[in-house]
């Protein structure tokens, strides 16, 4: 009885002042956070208990994420690497298509999927659609053995960051299409790592909020990957007038 308690106690001691929903509370938004969040922040700064509870909640969210992205070694041992990768993609609510097949295996809204994909043994995966899933750097290990992966769609994935992009060098020979639009954690440093994907033909980097000078970065990307067609929508490339900018600054100061 005391062992789990001491473990919990130690977890809390270690995670004093953890980040809690920091992305919503970070200061890049112009408006102040809503009332319930400000109340929660006020309570956290006053009471250790509230801080600890929020720390537990954050820890629970992170451990849930890690559990989903764990390495499926058991599945791999019994069913082979291809089925294991397929199962991983489906359990994260993504979709994929095998080499030589034309049908896509997907999960429905409730997370249910059919087990027909087990019928195709030892067929590598050709296209994977992981848009809006919680795939991250450790989860990519499950797809490591798919060396004939041609298309990878990662639109709107909240956990895809620069380190994930650097790890994509695993697919450098086969990857032809990559879609990383709307991923909030990608910055320019990660885009530099895409140079290893020498076979890339289509790249979609639309609406990345993390890159600071989108116009310049897109041009440099095009220079870096000459044979690749880059799609970059959703950026405001207009030159704003100086008076408008001054007005905006005045409004912000007020």
């Amino acid at each position, binding site marked *: 009885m005391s062992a789990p308690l001491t473990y919990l106690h*130690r977890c809390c*001691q*270690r995670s*004093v*002042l*953890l*980040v*809690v929903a*920091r*992305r919503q*509370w*970070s*200061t*890049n938004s112009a408006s102040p956070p809503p009332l319930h969040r400000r109340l929660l*922040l006020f309570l*956290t700064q006053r009471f250790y208990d509230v*801080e600890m509870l*929020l720390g537990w909640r954050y820890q629970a969210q*992170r451990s849930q994420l890690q559990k989903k992205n764990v390495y499926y070694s058991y599945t791999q041992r019994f069913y082979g690497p291809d089925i294991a990768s397929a199962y991983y993609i489906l359990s994260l609510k993504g979709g994929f298509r095998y080499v030589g097949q034309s049908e896509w295996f997907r999960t429905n809204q409730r997370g249910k999927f059919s087990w027909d994909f087990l019928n195709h043994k030892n067929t590598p995966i050709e296209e994977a659609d992981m848009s809006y899933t919680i795939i991250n*750097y450790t989860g990519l290990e499950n797809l490591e053995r798919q060396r004939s992966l041609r298309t990878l769609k990662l639109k709107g994935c909240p956990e895809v960051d*620069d*380190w994930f*992009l*650097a*790890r994509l*060098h695993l697919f450098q020979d086969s990857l032809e299409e990559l879609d990383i639009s709307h991923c909030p954690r990608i*910055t*320019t*440093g*990660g*885009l*530099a*790592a895409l*140079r*290893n994907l020498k076979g890339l033909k289509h790249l979609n980097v639309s609406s990345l909020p993390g890159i600071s*000078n989108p116009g*310049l*970065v897109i041009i*440099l*990307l095009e*220079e*870096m990957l000459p044979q690749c067609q880059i799609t970059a929508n959703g950026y405001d490339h207009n030159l704003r007038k100086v008076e408008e900018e001054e007005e905006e600054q005045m409004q912000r100061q007020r």
Partner: protein
Amino acid sequence: MSAMWRRLQVKVGPARGLLTSTQVTRRSTWLNGHLSLCQSFSTGTSLRNDFFKDLETHMEAMRKKAMDALPGSSWTPLEINPNLPPERADIVIVGGGVMGWSIAYWLKQKEMVRGGVRVLVVEKDPTYSQASTVLSAGGIRQQFSLPENIHLSLASADFMRNINEHLGVLNEDPIDLQFNHSGYLFLASEAVAHIMEENYSTQRYAGAKVFLLSPTQLKEKFPWVNTEGVVLASYGLENEGWFDPWTLLNAFKRKAISMGAIQCCGEVTEFKYTTSVITTTDGEKLDLRRIKSVKVQMPNSLEYQPVECAIVVNAAGAFSGKLTEMLGIGFGPKQSIAAIPLPVEPRKRYVYVVRCPDGPGLDTPFLIDYSGVYVRREGLGGNYITGASPEEAAEPDASDLEVDHSFFQENVWPHLAFRVPAFEKLKVTSAWAGFYDYNTFDQNAIIGTHPLINNMYFATGFSGHGLQHSPAVGRAVAELILDGNYKTLDLSSFSFNRILTQEPKLERNIV
């Protein structure tokens, strides 16, 4: 009681505000010229305004006095300098660079109870004008020849990947290290190609994602490189690149302080230690020293505070040698252990910022040539950072941080222009110099205790790769102090004993 005083102040505030606002409106309706004449001839403001202003200050002073008199306030009649460090601390870390704060963070992270260890970090220069951390080029690589160094780099890269989980603080922005994952590219000539191949196998065995390239493959991947004289190249694909050292330092500092580490701005000038004499089996007498307290001198002042401590960590970087001399190490009788000083001294290295609009683009790796010249991209505007390690004989004078531009003209630019022809047309926009905490013995870290000083731990001598190893070394030193032994990475080969037995552990890939 205090709430009443506060409400009183609040009442005075708006009253004064109302008064001044009405005055302003009345004044603004007058003609501007008349107004300015009035303003220049009057010698003071009206009496009524003075009364209210004085009332405000009197009320404020009375309120402060009442608050101080109440129990719970920290007022004392003796004026104490609030910047002094505490009188007692468990662990004093001398040096507030990235290594010192990393150790402080890990010590607070590993303590079992809240407030278990009192950690004090003493930094003599809060502007960090001479600190190696902030003047570094900020690269991290796994391409070393010693497996321990490779493991340290891998562990540090793991830490930086999950930096928000480790160092994230409530309601602050997520930490953005600005990590560029462009990798390191080492070029080898005929003479050193075999060393590169051996290192490659060590690196692959340790788990680094490194690939060897032949000259043709190199030309294909990086067409702007002149492959003349290059026999082999080694390119890191993952966990290699460069980042912002100031962000990392501040992240460690902020998190450590939020967990209770104490920061002090001052210089350690003296140690008070007790000596016990023991006789070895050979009949030799050894002085074992135990540090009892550290004298911390306040900046620009004669004031000092002796801090009693149990353990001192020497993370002073380039100035660690000077610190150890205060304990008498290096001044003992000849042929004794006490005569061997800490072989760490500051060495000056120059970094030049050059601008070349036609240079290689976004995919420029951290290129290191076999002649010792390095170059990396900085930002997106065609700026690059470059430099070189001078020869042993031609080391620049390390007494100040003045930049020698002729060094660039003679030693850096010719090799750079030869290796990357686009850099023949460039312009030096800026330059700075920084110190390496150079280990003159074997250019590798010194981590652990000294045989003659019971309670001083070293974490110094990194010779240019301290920043990239700082998270992992911090954890190792915290394990050494709190657990007594290394738990995750075994760095016992970096102990001081190798200097006593004169067995150098050479790192062959020093830039």
